[in-house]
């Protein structure tokens, strides 16, 4: 049987007076960690909000595990968990009460796993949520999302404010649920080095558009930084797959997507002294979102 992807977004659009998201197509396959990266205000949180019904799209469709996010909103939320920086559980007073509240909605709640996560994150049932640090509150949100084994885990900036030890635990848990339980994680983060290590696929969102997308290793490999000399500037004015970073007289520096802009294409346009070097995900991100 053909299993639908964990998340399938098609032609999604959301317009605000000063910002527009999309049109955007995105597919997150089952059993993968998908990293969504983009500068501040790129539309990452807006995109994630649409999945959980925090605002409705102006156009397009969102399907979670094959279910329409609007028509089957309850079924979608029975399969998908959300962790975000603005989640606030302080209204419930203590950690135990927040757990007690959330576990009532989750039939697959795992008390043993919850206990283990509490120990790993250093949380106590009797602690006041309002006195937890920012990182402590993030850990609580993560615990409440992980402890019922969701099919799709959507994490918006989950590692912001948490220490290196906790970050390690978070990624080890995420890898665990993806490898052992074949579940899916969509993670929006500015921690590019972490995503480069852990994410199977990444998507780069810039000004509401997905400017690059693919398997992390492949995406990084297929992009190169190139430097060359050329007298004919017009030949390089608009080359598909080429993002110019710097131009100093006849000297050019650009990032190339070798899939659409092979090195031979530059040579055929008159590039001399062509030199290339590989990029890290962070360098690629900086080049694409400049």
């Amino acid at each position: 049987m053909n299993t639908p992807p964990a998340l399938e977004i098609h032609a999604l659009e959301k317009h605000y007076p000063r910002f527009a998201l999309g049109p955007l197509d995105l597919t997150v396959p089952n059993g993968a960690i998908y990293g969504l990266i983009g500068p501040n205000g790129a539309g990452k949180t807006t995109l994630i909000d649409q999945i959980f019904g925090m605002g409705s799209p102006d156009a397009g469709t969102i399907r979670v595990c094959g279910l329409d996010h609007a028509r089957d909103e309850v079924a979608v939320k029975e399969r998908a968990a959300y962790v975000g920086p603005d989640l606030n559980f302080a209204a419930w007073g203590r950690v135990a009460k927040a757990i007690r509240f959330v576990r009532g909605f989750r039939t697959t709640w795992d008390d043993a796993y919850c206990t283990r996560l509490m120990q790993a994150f250093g949380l106590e049932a009797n602690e006041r949520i309002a006195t937890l640090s920012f990182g402590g509150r993030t850990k609580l949100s993560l615990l409440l999302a992980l402890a019922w084994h969701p099919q799709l885990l959507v994490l918006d900036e989950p590692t912001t404010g948490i220490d290196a030890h906790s970050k390690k635990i978070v990624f080890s848990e995420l890898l665990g649920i993806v490898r052992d339980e074949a579940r899916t994680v969509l993670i929006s983060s500015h921690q590019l080095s972490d995503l480069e290590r852990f994410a199977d696929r990444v998507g780069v969102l810039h000004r509401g558009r997905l400017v690059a997308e693919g398997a992390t290793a492949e995406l990084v490999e297929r992009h190169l930084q190139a430097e060359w000399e050329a007298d004919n500037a017009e030949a390089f004015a608009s080359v598909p797959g080429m993002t110019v970073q710097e131009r100093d007289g006849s000297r050019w520096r650009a990032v190339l997507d070798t899939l659409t802009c092979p090195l031979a294409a530059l040579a055929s346009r008159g590039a001399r002294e062509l030199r290339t070097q590989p990029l890290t995900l962070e360098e690629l991100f900086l080049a694409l979102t400049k």
Partner: protein
Amino acid sequence: MKLLILDFLRRWWWMFVLLCLLSFSTTIGGFPFALGPAAMFCLLVDAGRGVFRVVRPLPVPRREQAQTWWLLGVLAVPLVTLLPIVLGSFVYLSVHDPVGVTLVPPQEITSSGVAAPPMSIFIPTYSPWFAAGVQIWVGLGFAGFCFLLGSCLPTRPPEGIWESICAMLVGGLWGLSIPGLTILLPHLPRTPSALLPWHWAIVASVPFWVVISYFTAPDLLRRRTTAPVPARKPARPSTPAEWRGHVTGVPFYLVNFVARSTLMLLFISLVQVLFTGWLTGSAPIGPFAAIQTVCFAIIFSALSGEWCALRTLRALPLSTTQLAALLMAVPLSNGVMAAALASSWYGFGDAAVPMLVNFVAQTVAIAGLGALGMAAMLHFATGLRILVLIIVMWISAGVLFLCAKTPLWLALVGVAATALAWLALLRGLRNSAAFYQPRRFFGVSIGQPTASS
């Protein structure tokens, strides 16, 4: 100091304009009114937003910062409202006999069925300049008292029984401060001959509150700019028994939020009844107290949207309709509680119909208007929602006052408000980004340093 004061006035100008309008209109209506603690309320909203922490590292001495907050919290409102009260008094005197004005006694209001402004029932005679002086003076003292209370408000959840009791006491008194003033002011003397011993006591205590509040200002600054101490951690590890329970999920939400809101309303009404009863002896309390209870219910209902952590609720497996129904539960329970108090205890409503009819009509109206307030406030994520809250409260008080004698109209208004609130909630839950944005002023962490939140 000057820059800080100007900055505060620039951000809160609309609040001062509203206060001036209120003071002017009530003064020309025969009742000068200085809502002294209003600026302290604004200061605490600022504290919740982290303004104190932002200002703290600026090159302004700590002592000067504390003095600035004290000047604004205690002196600003009495000083600003002085002008509209003086102007209003001139207007009043130009159309009225300055001495010996006799207003309609309460029994005539009931028999004729014509309702005079509720506050006027306490005013037998009126000497405008004397009354204005007393109101401003007492307003100043009350502002000092509220500044003191605001300084003592807990900045972190209490630990242990004594801290909890103190926090509850200070929080309760703070919650009652503005309504307490609105209960107190109508009972202040209107002429020198009406001065009673307890009036003298209040008037004489004003310098004490003003001076002592000045000395608490540095403490206010310190408490509002220091990160809270983390709670002590228990030695033993947590076990599932600590978070298991029969009441969980939606029932747990209802028990937590509905019970909390209802208990707060009950507590405030009880204090109000005792306080008004003490001031007026066995005399009937009148519609004023009932409308005040209603206003509390509307406020709690409107604020319930701020307290419920909507973003968290939205990610749970509840449909939009279910979530809207869950949100409406708090206004409904507040409506039931406030209507029960207003119709039975205060005898508010149409005396010609059974109490149950008044109760039902008032329940529908208070619940509907409260839900409308909540939906309206959720549509704004900025400070504008304080204005929305004030407008909703004014409209609600007006509607309740005007339609109290006609339960059918009251019920119809309630049904219309409920329907409107329902549609607005559904619309907002689906489409409004403001619904899910962080709410800093009235959130559960109000008053907490923002660095920790």
